[in-house]
């Protein structure tokens, strides 16, 4: 296949996704869309409620996916969750802390926390709540561990691009007896998180956080669009396999 054909297929996929997301968001359904039950998000809400009641703090770790790389998507998903969690904890005594291993994501986390502080009862915005803790994966983990240990944190959310070093951070959080929820786009990190975190997010569940925390209609519609596209891809793969077996392809 030529580059032009591949480009057209890719562009068509993006266009179909865009139309699906907008179309589903505009469609005024009688009842809200029903998604499969992910108990992790229910437990996350419970942990957030406890943070507000206890007067403790929430920590969101955003990983080290640089903004100019494809790994930034998981960091952006983490920022969406951070914004939503900052809103949910706005009635509490202490605003959340965000740590990251990329300076771009760190600046954006400060922006998200600043926006959330305008509607919260926690007083003036503190720019040190959005932190860059290190620029290499392990220095980032080492810096985040001191935050997990010293800042009166009772719930930790690890959402972003991580590697195996996430095990050290989650283990530190476990030692503090705090709630741990973890999701990453990296396969190694997912395996580590499955073994170490109380509530691991597998695969694309990390990108569903917005829809499960009522972040907006476009989040719900994009999740439905993802499901439709997934079935489309499964159908194409099955048809392709059958055609291959029959010798057509």
């Amino acid at each position, binding site marked *: 296949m030529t580059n032009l054909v591949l480009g057209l297929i890719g562009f068509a996929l993006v266009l179909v996704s865009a139309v699906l997301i907008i179309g589903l968001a505009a469609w005024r359904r009688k009842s809200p869309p029903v998604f499969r039950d992910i108990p992790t998000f229910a437990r996350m809400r419970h942990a957030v409620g406890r943070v507000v009641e206890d007067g403790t703090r929430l920590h969101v770790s955003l990983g080290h996916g640089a903004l*100019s790389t494809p790994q930034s998507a998981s960091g952006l998903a983490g920022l969406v969750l951070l914004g939503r969690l900052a809103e949910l904890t706005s009635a509490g005594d202490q605003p959340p802390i965000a740590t990251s291993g990329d300076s*771009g994501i760190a600046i954006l986390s400060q922006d998200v926390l600043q926006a959330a502080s305008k509607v919260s009862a926690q007083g003036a915005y503190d720019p*040190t709540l959005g932190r*860059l803790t290190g620029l290499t994966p392990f220095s980032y983990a080492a810096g985040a561990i001191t935050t997990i240990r010293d800042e009166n944190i009772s719930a930790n959310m690890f959402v972003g691009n991580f590697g195996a070093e996430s095990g050290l951070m989650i*283990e530190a959080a476990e030692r503090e007896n705090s709630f741990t929820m973890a999701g990453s786009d990296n396969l190694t990190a997912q395996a580590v998180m499955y073994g170490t975190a109380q509530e691991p997010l597998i695969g*694309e569940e990390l990108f569903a956080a917005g829809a499960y925390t009522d972040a907006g209609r476009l989040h719900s519609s994009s999740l439905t669009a*993802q499901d439709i596209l997934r079935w489309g891809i499964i159908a194409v793969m099955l048809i392709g396999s059958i055609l291959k077996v029959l010798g057509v392809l």
Partner: protein
Amino acid sequence: MNLKGLFATISRSWLTAIAIAFGVLALIGYFFTSTILTGLRLLLLDLAVILAGFAVFVGVANLLNVHSKKIKRHDKSASYSTLLIIVLIVTFLLGLVARFFPAVNPLFNGAFNYIQLPVEASLMAILAVTLTYAAVRLLRRRFNWLSVVFLVTALLIIFGTVSLPFLGEVPGLSGLVRPLLSQVFAASGARGILLGVGLGTLAMGLRVLFGADRPYGGK
């Protein structure tokens, strides 16, 4: 709405419009290889890389700010923060001096080769112990068939990879079970997960392009 609020709203709208326009241009340039589009995409990426370079400075300033605050508050980890600031300043000065006096270069490189790298390697070693402990704890915390499959698979892969003392390689394990697990089951599962992650990434990118998620200026 006062003048300041109106200005903030207009500037936010402009920010969103500029971000969406640049995003769409970069996206189209990625799929279609025309000289103008590709040039524009590369220019935008170059700008992003330059901005990311400046962001590192802002990030380091933020790091200094966080740790200075910890020292002022006499936090539990204030001594570590003091050490961090001293080492940061020394390394920065070494890097600056090495630029003009090449004789200082080995000292600057030594800071990475003999401090940073060994420390990171030792953290990796700690990670191996941490993961073993976490694997044992997993069965206590979440005892279900998935956890059992996870642990049994991990053990089979480990024993299929290493040479066991007195026994050497277990023939069936290293020659059949390990390749079957890693190249068939794990590879097919990983592809399924990666397809899901790919679709999630696509949806995330489109939400940013639509301006539904704005990590660049609040709501």
